[in-house]
């Protein structure tokens, strides 16, 4: 990749993050306030209203939501990025993958702040740091690859099938419930549990909970498999964007 393209991605990410600050009164505070409000909502529904909470429900829910929020925002923002930037793509020759990459990076930086806050909350509520924290690095890298792959995949198709825009949000709501974010997939009966486990987010969120709550090392074999799947999807999606780019500029405006 050419240097100025890489520089463009980083500078646009900076511009994107600046935009968030400029677009609201509270600016960066929303990065933390928004997930906090979301956590409060789910806590209210599952622990107070329906009493379906497991022991340790608060840390369980917090970790799931923080990991999911990163995935979801990357896919929604990245997935629309090429479509949103079509006027620019018609004017200048740039690799189209630049646009979703910027969104994913911006969401990843926001996630870093939220993760730091999550760790502080966990330490204060009786889940101190432990040696298995080392495994956070591979788990988070795999989640980054998987989220990027999904974002690129949507991003490559939305310009040609703009109707997909209306589908992404709904798919993500269903996917959230199937990813064990708000309830444990361990409580689901046998054939379904294995089917749900095909969703990479289930394994990733479980691994995160194991590490952060119980100091448990992740299942390395399962993780290696997820890593291979994510890398494959990532490359396929990038290839798809490159192959479809000539069509984006010729689509009816």
């Amino acid at each position, binding site marked *: 990749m050419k240097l*100025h393209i890489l520089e463009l991605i980083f500078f646009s990410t900076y511009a994107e993050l600046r935009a968030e600050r400029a677009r609201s009164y509270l600016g960066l505070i929303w990065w933390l306030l928004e997930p906090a409000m979301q956590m409060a909502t789910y806590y209210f529904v599952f622990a107070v209203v329906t009493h379906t909470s497991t022991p340790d429900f608060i840390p369980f829910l917090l970790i799931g939501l923080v990991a999911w929020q990163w995935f979801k925002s990357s896919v929604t923002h990245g997935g629309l990025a090429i479509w949103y930037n079509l006027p620019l793509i018609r*004017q200048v020759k740039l690799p189209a993958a630049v646009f979703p990459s910027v969104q994913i990076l911006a969401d990843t930086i926001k996630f870093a702040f939220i993760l730091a806050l999550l760790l502080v909350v966990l330490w204060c509520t009786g889940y101190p740091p432990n040696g298995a924290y080392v495994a956070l690095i591979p788990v988070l890298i795999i989640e980054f690859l998987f989220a990027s792959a999904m974002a690129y995949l949507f991003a490559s198709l939305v310009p040609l099938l703009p109707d997909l825009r209306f589908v992404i949000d709904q798919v993500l709501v269903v996917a959230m419930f199937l990813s064990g974010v708000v309830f444990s997939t361990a409580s689901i009966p046998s054939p379904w549990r294995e089917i749900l486990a095909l969703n990479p987010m289930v394994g990733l969120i479980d691994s995160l909970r194991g590490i952060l709550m119980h100091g448990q090392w992740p299942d390395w074999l399962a993780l290696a498999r997820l890593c291979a799947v994510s890398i494959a999807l990532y490359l396929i999606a990038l290839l798809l964007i490159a192959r479809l780019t*000539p069509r984006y500029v*010729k689509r*009816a405006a």
Partner: protein
Amino acid sequence: MSQPLVSLEHVGIAFSTHLRFGAQRYWALEDVSLTLNPGDRLGLIGRNGAGKSTLLRTIAGILTPDRGRIRRATVSCQLLSLSLGFLPHLSGRDNAVLSGLMLGLQYRDIVRRLPAILDFSELGDFFDEPISTYSTGMTSRLGFSVAMQVEPDILLIDEILSVGDAEFKEKSGRALHDRMHSGTTVVFVSHDEKAIARVCSRALWLDHGRDAMYGGVDEVLAAYERDPDVSAVGAAKHE
């Protein structure tokens, strides 16, 4: 004889007309051949919808041919676009960097040229304010100053871009004129035949997506003006 920078052989470009299944395709370019040699200053003339801008974007590499063939030497080729990718909440300085990166400059090069951009745009202290506070004229002054920093091997220009008030118009027009006569290869689209005659050495007349005539600028312009369609329209409508 030097190698041509770009050559097109019977190139056609089709757009889809509607977002429907089985929608018709519209051929904006039917069949165009041309050769661009180093130092050429090529003018594109033709009526509205003849495919001039489409051809320009094809040479720029933004559009890929649906039929025919395009060959390109390893050269940089830039469509001159003002205010490319500008974001309202960013300062003039940050927008200059962002736009420069999109136009193919490296970060280091743009930062080195920021004083020249500030100087040419005459923005003063406004350079570090968000461009949402700018007037239209200020934004286009900044856009022009950034675009002038890019030095591609082939410069593609869609209509003369003189911007701002009378004084800046004169200054930007002069800068662009100097640029076009500095030995750069130029492809220039305009409805203004006088401007084409002033700037270009060769001309291509596009008619309904086909190359009607390609040759020396005087010869092509003379034939273009003689065309009954063109002279009738030219008298009624001048853009």
